[in-house]
């Protein structure tokens, strides 16, 4: 019953012809757009995202919100100039328009209504593009620097309409009720489960000849629990599942067992010691290893250059892209590959055959022998790169940027867990601590409560989000949970200091966004799916600081 409900019934897509008709009609008209003394559009691109979404949340077994229905949004991108120099990739002053606009569309299949929305959005985007180009030209006036092209040409993609399933809210409601209900009676202060499932397609129609239906879908479930330590410290843990659709979620018994294990851990943590200032080897296992790589590696393999800014916002130094070919990122013998099409074949979150820009996804061998050799690319060009690799994705009206989709990291000589622990303990011997710190989980950036993450927008100031599950491993094999930890001064260079690694584990789905500020504001259920397959790693030396709680509750829990 559960599976049947989740799968629902595949919807025929009566909408498809109506959406195509509306977009084609307005695309044809929009070629006539002209402003005095300004270039006409050389590229018009319409994306109509059409689908079904259900979002639900429950607290301690009772629903707090539920929402289900169709979702249809239009994204219009107008480019003026030409492929070598256009309005794109430039960020003007705060509040200035760009060539990209978004509008919600009516759910009814009415060609005229859809055309009017497209007409208004196109008009706005063309005016925005003209202003954006003028801002860019003004910013470059007098510049002695050379600038590369603004957009890669691609072959137009033509595909048949696709179908998608209904996304009923009831099974998700039942799921979050049950999962959050498991948090009752365990002495938790907060306990909630939330879920979102989305199925649909992205219709891409452009003046370049794209006529493509690109399927899209994911399901995300998060369970969050909060308790308090004896000294008042807030202890929080989050368990997440990200899969390609709701039917691909694990069995509920398995999810429930994971939730139970999370609560057991949290309850145990109430009396755990606060880790002091730690300086020594750290073993990252499971989800923590994933977060380590995701947070430190994503920007190093995403090749999209930063947006060009007016000179007054940049200063003399200019903008330097984070990712660099030829940089040693990992130890000798390591490799990193991103292959969305293979992930699609395997049914993984983040898998696809065509990216948001209609470019077929390529397998990209990013890191060879520890050194960055290629980069993920969208249609935004970069010196030395040949074209898009089919990794152009982003949220909403943001520029389509290269974003990791299905990353697999392979170490040179993988070792078993025992070897990693043994080596870690040996490295710990000369330090002040007679134990190895093992980090098993870290806060996903999307749900981090760290003020610094929210404030900086770019990422946690310490370089990594906080560990939520960490323990001391003593030479005698004893494990002792610790709490209150934060990293200090971590950056990508620590990846070169990996001493040993385990075998690459099965891919795990995450919700993410392109590296940058988008990544930390996607919210509990937002973002785009991706998957990462990473090994456990032992890093020779890292610094962490510990902090105890500040304030106890006054009232006893009911």
């Amino acid at each position, binding site marked *: 019953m559960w599976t049947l409900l989740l799968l629902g019934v595949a919807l025929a897509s009566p909408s498809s012809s109506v959406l195509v008709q509306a977009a084609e*009609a*307005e695309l*044809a*008209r*929009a070629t*006539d*757009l*002209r*402003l005095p003394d300004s270039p006409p559009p050389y590229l018009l691109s319409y994306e109509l995202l059409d689908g079904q*979404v259900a*979002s639900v949340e*429950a*607290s*301690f*077994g*009772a*629903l*707090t*919100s*539920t*929402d289900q*229905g*169709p*979702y249809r949004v239009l994204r219009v991108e107008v480019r003026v100039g030409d492929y070598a120099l256009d309005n794109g990739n430039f960020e003007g002053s705060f509040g200035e328009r760009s060539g990209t606009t978004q509008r*919600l569309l*009516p*759910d*009814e*299949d*009415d060609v*005229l*209504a*859809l*055309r*009017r*929305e497209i*007409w*208004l959005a196109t*008009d706005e985007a*063309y*005016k925005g593009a003209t202003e954006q180009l003028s801002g860019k030209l003004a910013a470059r006036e007098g510049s002695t620097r050379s600038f590369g092209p603004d957009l890669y040409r691609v072959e137009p993609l033509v595909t048949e309409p696709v179908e998608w399933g209904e996304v009923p809210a009831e099974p998700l409601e039942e799921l979050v009720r049950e999962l959050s209900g498991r948090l*009752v009676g365990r002495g938790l*202060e*907060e306990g*909630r489960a939330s879920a*979102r499932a*989305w199925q649909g397609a992205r219709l891409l129609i452009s003046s370049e000849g794209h006529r493509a239906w690109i399927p899209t879908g994911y399901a995300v479930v998060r369970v969050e629990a909060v308790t308090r330590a004896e000294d008042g410290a807030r202890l929080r843990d989050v368990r997440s599942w990200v899969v390609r659709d709701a039917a691909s979620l694990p069995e509920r018994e398995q999810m429930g067992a994971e939730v139970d294990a999370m609560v057991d851990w949290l309850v145990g943590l109430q009396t755990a010691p606060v880790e002091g200032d730690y300086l020594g080897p750290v073993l990252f296992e499971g989800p923590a290893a994933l977060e380590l790589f995701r947070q430190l590696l994503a920007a190093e393999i995403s090749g999209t250059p930063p947006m060009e800014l007016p000179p007054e916002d940049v200063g003399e130094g200019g903008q330097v892209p984070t990712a660099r070919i030829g940089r040693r990122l990992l130890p000798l013998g390591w490799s990193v590959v991103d292959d969305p099409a293979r992930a699609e074949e395997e049914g993984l979150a983040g898998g696809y055959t065509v990216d948001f820009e209609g470019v077929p996804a390529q397998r990209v061998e990013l890191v060879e022998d520890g050194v960055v050799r290629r980069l993920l690319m969208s249609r935004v060009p970069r010196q030395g790169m040949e074209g898009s690799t089919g990794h152009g994705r982003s*949220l909403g009206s943001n520029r389509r940027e290269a974003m990791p989709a299905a990353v697999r990291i392979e170490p040179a000589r993988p070792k078993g867990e025992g070897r990693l622990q043994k080596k870690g303990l040996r490295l710990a011997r000369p330090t002040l601590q007679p134990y190895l710190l093992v980090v098993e989980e870290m806060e996903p950036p999307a749900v981090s409560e760290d003020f610094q993450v929210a404030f900086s927008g770019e990422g946690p100031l310490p370089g990594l989000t906080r560990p939520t599950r960490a323990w001391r491993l003593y030479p005698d094999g004893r494990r002792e949970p610790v709490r209150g930890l934060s990293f200090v001064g971590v950056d990508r260079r620590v990846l070169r200091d990996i001493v040993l690694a385990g075998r690459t584990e099965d891919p795990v789905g995450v919700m993410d966004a392109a590296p940058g500020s988008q990544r930390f504001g996607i919210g509990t259920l*937002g973002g785009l799916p991706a998957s990462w397959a990473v090994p456990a790693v032992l890093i020779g030396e890292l610094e962490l600081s510990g902090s105890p709680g500040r*304030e106890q*509750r*006054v*009232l*006893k*829990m*009911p």
Partner: protein
Amino acid sequence: MVDRVNRRLRLAPWTSGAPVNPARLLGPALALTALLGTAALARTLPPPDPEPDPLHLALQAELTRAWELLQAQPEPPYWLQVAVMDRRMRSIQATHGATGTWRDDRGRIGDVDLRVGSPELDNTRKIRDAGWFSDVPRARFEVPIEDQGGAIQLGLWRGIDDSYRGAVRQLIRVRANDAVKVESRDSSADFSPSPPQVELRAVPSVELDPQAWTDLVREASAVFLSYPDVHDSNVSFAAEDQVRHILSSEGTRLRLPQSFVRLSISASTTAEDGMRLDVYDYVDGASPGAMPDREKTLAMAHAVAQRVTDLRKAPIVDPYVGPAILRGRAAAVFFHEVLGHRVEGHRQKDEDEGQTFTDKVGQPVLPAFLDVVDDPTLARVGGVDLNGHYRYDDEGVAAQRVSVVEAGILRGFLMSRSPIQGFGTSNGHARRQPGAAPVARQGNLIISARQSVSYTELRRQLIAQVRAQGRPFGLVFDDITGGFTFTGRVTPNAFNVQPVSVWKVFPDGRPDELVRGVDLIGTPLTTFERILAASDQVDVFNGSCGAESGWVPVAAVAPDLLVAEVEVQRKEKAHDRPPLLPPPLPATTKAEVR
């Protein structure tokens, strides 16, 4: 990914003034000490509920438990109130003749209001000369939409605990601030007594036919397709069924259902000079039965479309000073902004406020032919449901009719349970949007004239004024979208009322001319002195008012008013060219629209 903004709120027509400084109270407790027996205020727990309501049972259980436990603390609370706003919002909207999807959304928000110290001096007192961002965050709590007692109780427990710890911290600051600062001009206490109220009203089931409303908004929306000058439009229907639950340590226990229904129609265009023109019309009511029928709805849509079309061609009026008539709805908003916000009780005590009327009780503030009351107990006027109707305010005090101005003389203020000099008790005007602390707000502000004339006569008097003042024309403000006012001292104590339709009236008998591009501006005392006459017709403005305690539904009722002199200033304007291509029209081809 999903962004379902409540368009009803986004389109709320009445953006009323949000004074810069939060309304908290000043002055040590001296005058009302005898009235404020702490024990009498707070130590009685409510009687058992005759009709067990699972939500109330859970809230009451935790309120009672927390209250008793907190009494053992060194700084026990002397008042604790728990409120839950339960909302069900059903809505549908259409644009260009096509609809969205019928939505049926449910949500609950919980509020905790807790006072420590004593009624004479408590944690809610305003910190004078406070730094930026120094406010203690208010405690809200998560309330499931399903009545599961354990989950509800846990949420409330956290809310009360957070609220209590915040209150104790704030009281330390309040006491220090009181010691450091000079004595306040108004040394009233911080909280006044009020008898506990128990009223558990049955929650009615409001039946709606989703298909019928979907068909109606679609049909009305399609009207705009035949008006080529209308670029964008929206028709929406929204029915919000609220149930306010209020329980307090004094024994108050209230369950207050109330419905708000709105059918709204909006359209916009861009004039050739770049000015964006929006026309918004709507009908508010307390039940679906108050909504217009199909014919009236279609007529509204046509009227909005025609008004947009006419405004697009209308000339812009230059800044002007001269006589004007404010038609009923415009006059109602004018009074709401100019008088209403300035008679809200807490502003009389806050020395950062302009306090225009604080010392004018017993003195003339309006022409002698005008009376002003604020009466939340009034549900309807002339067959029109009033948005500002409520039975109890957000501090659990029964709503009262308040005489604000009698025969032009200022008589009173709108009061919450925060006393001010000369006004020691609440008159049931504490209001808030869920999540904010309640302060004194307007409900139904009703302006009435002891002497009135017909509208024809009022127009004749306008033309006489135009001639007497040697002006080329007078103005009639027909309808408005909203307005705002500044009541603080840092900014000029001015108001701005934003009209939709303004007509020039000429003394030589030429037809009236629709004009655009101006806002009505002024300062309160000067403007009130210039009101000359009122008509015998009244009109109702229903809307939402935003101020420091959030958005609350309000109404204002007023006759047409003749004002000897108003000032208008140029409206803020966009500069975009109108859409470069003509709109796609029904059954057009590419060749036809070029």
